[in-house]
């Protein structure tokens, strides 16, 4: 059994850990509010953008000559995956969930005999993937310096992707990120951005007759690169809200666990102190009896 001194030391160390986790929880909670707000404010833009593109692509008559970003390169050999994670740890299952989702997708791609390329955004994703998929990672991007998520950063990632697509380095591009549902639930998502998947059924869009100025193709070829940046930006916003939410609940759990541990250790400490006193008493009594 640990001595009284050791127990005392452990109690105080757990207590100071608890203080840290509590502080981290508070910080995450205040950051969460801001992140959640900007994620919600950012949604209309990407939704509108998606809608417009959907309408446009339904109106494009000449599918074969439409921009490559929309219909793809016609092949399905090289897959590029953008794995978006956080730059900091201690946020529960946040990064692990994305990685798990991404890894199962990677496995599927590799089993089908296709080539896999990975770009990681955020350093934690790189740390976790480099062991298994070192050769597949072609680029790692991290925005540790920027304090807030801004469109400029997302645009940078978008331009990298488009640049690589134009050099014919890949055929299909998928991004992985966590969608923020609420503080407790974040859903890992995979979203294909090149070629664009028009996932929604075109129920109501076929009836709309739009005027276009200039021609559809020209608008599309201008809009699609922007859409990619927008989708990335949306993913980044959702991710940051998810990260803070996940960290908050993880830290909340940690604080509670630390509290339980302190209770347990205190009981153990009191018991062993009592045991020591009893032992001393017995020694004195039995010593007195033997006289």
């Amino acid at each position, binding site marked *: 059994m640990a001595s009284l001194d050791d127990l005392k030391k452990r109690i105080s160390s757990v207590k100071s850990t608890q203080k840290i986790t509590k502080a981290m929880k508070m910080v995450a909670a205040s950051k969460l509010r801001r992140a959640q707000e*900007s994620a919600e*404010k*950012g949604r*209309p*833009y*990407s939704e*509108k*953008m998606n*809608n*417009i593109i959907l*309408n*446009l692509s339904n109106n494009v008559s000449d599918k074969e000559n439409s921009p490559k970003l929309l219909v793809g390169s016609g092949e399905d050999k090289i897959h590029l995956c953008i794995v978006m994670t956080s730059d900091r740890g201690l946020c529960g299952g946040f990064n692990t969930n994305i990685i798990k989702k991404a890894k199962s997708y990677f496995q599927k791609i590799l089993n089908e005999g296709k080539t896999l390329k990975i770009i990681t955004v955020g350093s934690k994703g790189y740390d976790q993937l480099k062991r298994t998929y070192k050769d597949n990672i072609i680029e790692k991007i991290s925005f540790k310096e920027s304090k807030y998520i*801004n*469109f400029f950063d*997302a*645009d940078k990632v978008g331009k990298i992707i488009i640049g690589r697509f134009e050099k014919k380095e890949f055929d299909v591009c998928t991004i992985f990120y966590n969608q923020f549902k609420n503080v407790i639930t974040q859903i890992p998502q995979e979203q294909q951005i090149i070629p664009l998947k028009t996932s929604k059924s075109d129920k109501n869009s076929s009836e*709309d*007759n*739009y*005027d*276009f*100025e*200039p021609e559809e193709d020209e*608008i599309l070829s*201008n*809009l699609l690169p*922007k859409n990619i940046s*927008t989708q990335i*930006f949306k993913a980044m916003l959702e991710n940051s809200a998810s990260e803070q939410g996940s960290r908050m609940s993880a830290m909340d759990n940690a604080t509670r666990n630390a509290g339980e541990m302190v209770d347990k250790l205190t009981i153990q400490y009191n018991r062993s102190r009592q045991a020591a006193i009893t032992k001393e008493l017995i020694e004195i009594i039995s010593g007195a009896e033997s006289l």
Partner: protein
Amino acid sequence: MSEGFKLEIINPEKSFLLKDSVLEVVVPAFEGDMGILKDHISIISFLKPGLVKVFTSNSNEETYYVEDGIIEFKNNCLSILTSNIFDTKKIDKNILKDSLTKAEQDSKDPEISDQKKYLIDQKIDVLKSLTLN
């Protein structure tokens, strides 16, 4: 029935401006300025750098500077999506000057496409007129 239509200006970070009833909006469309009134035909177009003018009533006019964007008009609802927009009254002159010098540098690049050249020239024109005021 009111005479106006709904206007939304959205940038990636937030809804920049939301008005339930405006009389007319003039947008710098790619092929020239375009005024949009109520019951305009559904249209999708994209913007070149320029000024968006919003008329909320006959006497009231607001102007915004946009660098790029796309507009959609449908069912009397005009949506303007743009990544860069400033209120001309509140805009910082220094920002304008910075982007003007940058645009002037860009326009000297001999390898840009005609379309880009056109857009940059437009931008320079608008920025110059704004910085003069």
